């Protein structure tokens, strides 16, 4: 365990958010059990008041997840000098096996909390709250995920043993440990490009089609494309986008982008990708809800917003990724 302020902040924050979420799911459970939309008893009124608390707890939870994701990466980066052989945040994550899992759970939590907040807002626009039950059932699933996040983070950080001069054996600990890899195994750039550009093209075509047509099928296709594109884009960042951004032929770290040294270019890059993905998922997820008469008008209205936000996010991502490929002197693939 490293007593590092960033680690204290992350663990403390996660603990706090788990406590808030436990409170929220307790309230959610009461609502699931006792909700009666037709009643006007004081008990029902109290339940209705509780929905406000739950949405505000979840909003706070989402805000926390976004900040804590950034903080997690920054902390992992900040402590990498403690580990011999770790060249950047990747080295810290590799230091024990849980690191990547924490990152995955954090990503999942971000998407789960964001979707919950967005669908909660949609539901609150209608007078009869048709999504009430699914919403609070989903809440009961988010809470264990947050708990998992806390425990994984704890076991990750407590399993980190910095390489300090501890005993008479001096520097012999510095032998490259079995799990320390300084670079991620990356796809060959040509393969990654061959996957990345077509899937992005499909994404653009589908989004533009969705903007013109109300067809639900297109939205389901977009949903799947966005998920595929998200993972391919992550692989592409590791495989070739980072190389262009760093202007170095073998530096694959996806986290160094977030450093001051690279002008924090990673933040808009990842924000664009995550935002574009999140809002690209929404039309497909909302399409089956069209049959609720009280929601369909709202969905029609929001659908266009979502598509545009997704488009803007993806374009920001793509612009940052492509800029150095088109305008910087560094070339990875020689033409000819």
């Amino acid at each position, binding site marked *: 365990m*490293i*007593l*590092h*302020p*960033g*680690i*204290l*902040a992350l663990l*403390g*924050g996660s603990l*706090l*958010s788990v406590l*808030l979420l436990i*409170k929220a799911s307790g309230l959610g459970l009461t609502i699931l059990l006792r909700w009666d939309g037709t009643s006007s008893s004081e008990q029902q009124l109290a339940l209705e*008041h509780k929905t*406000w*608390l739950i949405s*505000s*707890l979840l909003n*706070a939870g989402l805000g*926390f997840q976004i*900040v*804590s994701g*950034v*903080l997690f990466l*920054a*902390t992992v*980066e*900040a*402590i990498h*000098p*403690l580990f*011999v052989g770790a060249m950047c945040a990747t080295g810290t994550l590799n230091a024990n096996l849980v690191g990547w899992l924490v990152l995955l759970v954090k990503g999942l939590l971000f998407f789960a909390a964001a979707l919950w907040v967005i669908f909660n807002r949609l539901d609150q626009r209608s007078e009869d709250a048709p999504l009430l039950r699914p919403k609070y059932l989903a809440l009961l699933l988010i809470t264990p995920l947050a708990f998992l996040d806390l425990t994984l983070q704890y076991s990750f950080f407590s399993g980190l043993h*910095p*390489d*300090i*001069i501890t005993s*008479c*054996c*001096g*520097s*012999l600990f*510095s*032998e490259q440990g079995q799990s320390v890899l300084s670079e991620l195994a990356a796809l060959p750039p040509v393969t990654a490009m061959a996957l990345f550009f077509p899937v992005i093209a499909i994404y653009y075509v589908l989004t533009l089609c969705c903007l013109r047509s109300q067809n639900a099928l297109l939205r389901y296709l977009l949903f799947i494309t966005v998920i595929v594109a998200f993972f391919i884009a992550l692989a592409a960042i590791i495989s070739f986008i980072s190389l262009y951004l760093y202007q170095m032929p073998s530096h694959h770290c996806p986290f160094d982008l977030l450093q*001051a040294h690279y002008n924090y270019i990673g933040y808009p890059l990842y924000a664009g990708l995550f935002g574009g993905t999140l809002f690209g998922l929404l039309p497909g997820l909302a399409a089956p809800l069209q049959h609720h008469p009280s929601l369909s008008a709202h969905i029609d209205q929001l659908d266009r917003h979502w598509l545009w936000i997704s488009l803007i996010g993806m374009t920001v991502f793509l612009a940052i990724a492509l800029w150095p490929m088109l305008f910087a002197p560094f070339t990875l693939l020689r033409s000819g």
Partner: protein
Amino acid sequence: MNRQLKLLEYALAGLTRRKGKNVALLLVYAFTIAALGSVLFLTDALRSEARQTLDHAPEMVVQRISAGRHELIPRSYATTIAQLPGVRQATPRVWGYYYDALVRANFTLMGVTEPETQIKDLQGQLPAADNECAVGIGIADIFGATIGDSLVLVDAHGKNRVFAISGIFSAHSALLTHDLILMPEPALRAFFNLDPTVATDIAVSIANPREITTLAKKVRYHLPDTRPISRSEILHTYDSIFNWRSGMMFAVSVAALIAFCILAWDKATGISADEKREIGILKAVGWNTGDVMAIKFWEGLILSLSAFLIGTIAAWLHVFVLGAPALTPILKGWSVLFPPFSLQPVTDPYQILVLAFLTIAPYLACTLIPAWKTAVTAPEQAMRS
């Protein structure tokens, strides 16, 4: 956007109406943040100082270990090490400690072999004769000595020895030289009564940094009673030490933060009849619970953001302008020769992020539930007061 601006305006009006209470809260909050911030800034600056200046330390230091303790090393080991391929130079070093009971401080005595070197941070000369020494600014200050004065130290035989001060290190380098006394190596050996065949340790200079680990293994293989310490390990150790120190002090200061959050919780839950009436009015004229919660959120954000800015700026001034007067007694312990902090104001934006997260998040979380309790006040409340 517009709506949030209007709610912000109302929240500000609400805060100014309860001025006394909120200003007091703001000050306590800012003070807590300033305390935490000072710890962070100080340790971070020390860490980066160590990282930067020690970047030129010897690539490897070889100690001899005997019975689990650091032992004097035979000079012949230096020859053995120097013969390993890849080693540029192996220099035996002689240094030790000297406790001065009068000032109750520990000095570090070091032997120098090349007095002709020109050191920019040294006023005067390096010691050339056996009765000369160069001292750090801390030692010069504690005795009120200047160049040309003499320092009297008791040697290993219990005899007083007089050393003329030939040079004093500048205050700029105090973090490295504060307690240092340099004297020619033969003089130091005589002073400590050291055998000429031994040294304290051996500094090894290595041409290719990638070979340090390999060479460390070779040294251990050829000289099994040694302990090689590489420069990167020294830097790691400093990183860990300051993480540990700041984490430790942080853990203590967090108690203050928790106490503050309890205060905030208490303030937020104990709403006055006046406030309850106000919320009732707001709701009666058409606000919903969400709007009221929004102004409560704004109130919390305004308070915590202002406190954060005030506290962080105060911490910066405290550490880098005033030299952290409030923290040095804690750091100092009983060390009399504590160097003045003239640290380079290096702060990582990451530290600011950590500080913001640690101080703003608990406050906002603490006010969430009380804000909701206030916000669900029934609009009828306004009619029945």
